[in-house]
């Protein structure tokens, strides 16, 4: 087994931890816990911390204990909840988002061809009820993920060859084995997933969850029906749902005490067994409790922020439209904006269905036609109108902010607004004849009449499509909008019925390789070649893709065998070059910068953060070490 890029970071962290351990032979804890220890209701701190706690380097300064972090959420599986109080996976992103570093696990190693990953847990690591966290928990968790009765979404833990095998070597060590190389496995473990199991292994404590499974408890079915559930599986699923199950032990910094669903709030309080300390040996988290108001309406949530009653928040209401509203009161309530580096491959990606069955295929599959339509758009005007200047014109591409994958041609080809050039290209594409209304004709004499399918849930996209169709009319191409509800849009797309499809995508930074669909057909989250994706996945209704797309898919599979991000980026750059040459889709606007906001007294929160969903901000910045500075209130 060779040592890969992880070892470097692992040892770095290990050294920091060791140093912290040496320099502070005694660890400190929150005053409230101190009391519980002296009254005997809680074991001593040394018995609660693992032998090698994770030492967190403070963003600003070592903090003080206490206070409530007031924020908000809107649904049971709200990602903001996971990103703040629940981002404690086995491994996590580093703060520059260039690498993966250990978190719950003390270290991890991958073998040569990325099929076997060996995790080592921290000695003496405990769940929030004091029960040891061991590799038996991991083995149990994998068993549960595989259990088809439960159907727990856990994408990271399977690849083309099927589910991972998890095997315990000893109490602290276990291996995860895949049938095929899975180079991005650790990245996938580091992401969050709104379907709850982003953390996979770390959210199913065996000693608690096994009582709900009939393999471990013959009365599981009875237990379920006593609790009002139809089946043990429903009961089990309700019990591990983090935001809903206050009884379930956790490894995270705060324990949910008031679950989602009972009232209009969720409360999570300090976990006395949390495994992180600061550089002076103070056990984290600093903040006593996290308090979420539950809102159904974002305008009302905004009111809470305007009243200065949100210490730090970065979802639902941090929109372009709300920025001036918040800026208005910023000074009065001592609030500051946090710059989020946006991951936006495009906010209005327009896909041309290359596999469309019908006369319009003649237009859709013609590259000059697509290039012509691209030049017909005044993107400056579109982006300014729709995003009030918060987005810039760009094709569907990785942002220049992320150098390893930036491709100039992909980002900027056919980008300038030039009606003459557009007409020239459309003529060159063969659509020179026009009808009485000035619209171009197909070779069979029918008008080129395209329908662009747009979802109802994003007004931005509807506005972009509407503006685009007006520009296209100017160059003689008739494009009609078909605005439909999201699930219907997905359904039609999967049935390959669309001509043009508008979607929005992140995948504009390091996450491009994790959600690669905008660039090549390895998922259905795109609109240029749904049957090609079926071919890739070995599903029904497949069509064999053209040679250059097959080449992309081959490269993508090759990327899967690499464990080092740098190598992965190299292969993916080749894929992106082919995407640029194909030009199956055109982009409109990309968001450069997004924002979240915090009150001044909330400390240790970096003022520039990665903003992508896959990065899960503020998770990788260790929310446990955020603190409330009483002197600044």
């Amino acid at each position, binding site marked *: 087994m060779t040592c890969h890029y992880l070892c470097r970071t692992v040892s770095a962290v290990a050294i920091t931890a060791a140093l912290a351990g040496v320099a502070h032979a005694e660890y400190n804890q929150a005053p409230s816990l101190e009391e519980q220890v002296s009254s005997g209701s809680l074991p001593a701190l040394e018995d609660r911390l693992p032998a090698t706690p994770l030492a967190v380097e403070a963003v600003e300064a070592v903090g003080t204990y206490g206070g409530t972090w007031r924020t908000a959420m809107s*649904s*049971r599986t709200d990602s903001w909840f996971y990103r703040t109080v629940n981002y404690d996976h086995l491994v996590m992103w580093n703060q520059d988002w260039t690498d993966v570093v250990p978190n719950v696990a003390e270290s991890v190693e991958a073998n040569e061809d990325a099929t076997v990953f060996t995790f080592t847990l921290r000695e003496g690591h405990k769940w929030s009820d004091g029960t040891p966290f061991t590799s038996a928990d991991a083995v149990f968790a994998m068993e549960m993920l595989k259990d088809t009765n439960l159907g727990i979404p856990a994408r990271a833990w399977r690849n083309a060859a099927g589910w991972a095998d998890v095997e315990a070597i000893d109490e602290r060590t276990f291996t995860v084995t895949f049938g095929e190389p899975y180079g991005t496995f650790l990245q996938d473990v580091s992401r969050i997933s*709104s379907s709850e199991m982003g953390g996979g292994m770390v959210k199913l404590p065996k000693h608690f969850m096994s009582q709900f499974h009939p393999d471990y408890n013959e009365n599981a079915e009875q237990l379920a029906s006593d609790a009002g559930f139809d089946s043990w599986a429903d009961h089990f699923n309700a019990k591990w*749902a983090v935001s809903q199950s206050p009884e379930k032990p956790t490894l995270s910094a705060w324990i949910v005490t008031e679950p989602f669903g009972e*009232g209009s709030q969720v409360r999570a309080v300090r976990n006395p067994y949390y495994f992180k300390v600061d550089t002076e040996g103070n056990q984290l988290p600093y903040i006593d409790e996290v308090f979420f108001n539950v809102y159904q309406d974002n305008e009302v949530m905004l009111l809470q922020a305007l009243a200065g009653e949100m210490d730090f928040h970065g979802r639902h209401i941090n929109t372009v439209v709300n920025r001036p509203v918040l800026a208005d009161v910023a000074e009065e309530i001592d609030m500051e904006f946090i710059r989020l580096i946006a991951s936006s491959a495009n906010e209005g990606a327009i896909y041309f269905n290359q596999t469309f069955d019908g006369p319009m295929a003649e237009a859709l599959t013609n590259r000059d036609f697509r290039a012509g339509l691209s030049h017909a758009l005044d993107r400056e005007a579109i982006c300014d109108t729709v995003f009030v200047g918060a987005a810039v014109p760009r094709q569907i591409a990785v942002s220049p902010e992320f150098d390893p994958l930036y491709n100039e041609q992909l980002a900027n080809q056919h980008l300038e607004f030039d009606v003459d050039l557009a007409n020239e290209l459309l003529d060159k594409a063969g659509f020179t004849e026009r009808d009485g209304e000035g619209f171009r004709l197909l070779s069979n004499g029918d008008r080129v009449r395209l329908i662009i399918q747009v979802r109802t849930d994003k007004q931005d996209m509807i506005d972009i499509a509407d503006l685009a169709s007006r520009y296209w009319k100017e160059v003689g191409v008739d494009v009609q909008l078909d605005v439909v509800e999201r699930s219907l849009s*997905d359904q039609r797309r999967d049935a390959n019925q669309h001509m043009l499809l508008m979607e929005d995508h992140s995948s504009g930074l390091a*996450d491009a390789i994790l959600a690669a669909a905008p660039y090549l057909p390895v998922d259905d989250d795109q609109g240029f070649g749904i049957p090609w994706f079926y071919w890739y996945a070995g599903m029904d209704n497949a069509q064999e893709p053209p040679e250059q797309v097959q080449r992309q898919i081959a490269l993508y599979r090759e990327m899967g065998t690499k464990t080092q991000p740098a190598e992965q980026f190299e292969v993916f750059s080749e894929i992106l070059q082919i995407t640029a040459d194909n030009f199956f889709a055109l982009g409109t606007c990309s968001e450069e910068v997004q924002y979240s906001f915090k009150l001044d007294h909330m400390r240790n929160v970096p003022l520039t953060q990665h903003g992508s969903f896959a990065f899960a901000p503020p998770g990788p910045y260790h929310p446990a070490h955020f603190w409330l500075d009483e002197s600044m209130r």
Partner: protein
Amino acid sequence: MLQYVVRRILLMIPTLFLISFVTFIVVQLPPGDYLNAYVAALTQEGGETVDREQIEMLRQRYGLDEPFMVQYWYWISNIIFEGDFGRSFQWNQPVSDLLWGRIGLTFAVSLASLLFVYVVAFPIGVYSAIRKYSLGDYVFTFFGFIGLAVPNFLLALVLMVVSLQVFGVTPGGLFSPEYASAPWSWAKFVDFLAHLWVPMIIIGTASTAALIRVMRANLLDELNKPYVETARAKGQSEAVLIMRYPVRIALNPFVSRLGWELPALVSGAAITSIVLNLPTAGPVLLTALQSQDMYLAGSFILILSTLTVIGTLVSDILLAWLDPRIRYS
């Protein structure tokens, strides 16, 4: 009378069956099913792609791949024979856990605003009718029409912004944070009452305005009738006269209103409840319908329909008792 009541109760059974069936159809009418909506919600959250196989697995487990009639039978038979309303996919909880607490609070808010409406609308309506075209009548009419014209949710938002700007507090909810999840106690009840007046007034305004107008119009019709003249000629004092005869007749809409007050409060107040962040039925019903959480939505509508049908019956009986002119056939 007894025969009438029995007949009405028997009629309720097929009515409710029909309602439950239509409800179930309507909830399922949009294309796709709960899982489509679920997947859409996940991908919307940001770049999450969902495993198709797993979705198919869930679909089988939830029985969403079964024919419509099978699903309906499964749902309705469980309700009838076991009192089990099924489970909410979206909330990951048994429907009954979600249902009763919210229905109770919905009732409390509804009753409170109903009382508010009656207490305000009745005297004003009577006053406006008796002092027709007086200054007071014009003032009340003016505010009445404003109340009628302003959407409740807008009023709620305006009130919240004003209270934020003037008092520096954000109203909303039915409880203070410390009581929200606490078991019921006297302190919690007092806290509840302290919060109740905001939704009570906001939800009540539109109905108040409407009822004032109805009361005024009805009473005006009655005031010119010969029996009023007769009573007055007999020397009956004005106050007793008006309260005893014309007001009693003009009261009919107050009573017949009872039946449809409840569904109006639940559906009409949904947006207001969302804005005010009330833990009542409206918001849950709305999200259940949006995400096609069919058992939850269906059960809510079924329960509310049942209550409405009962409410209508009660109001009909009251009306029959109040107004002898009404026939039982």
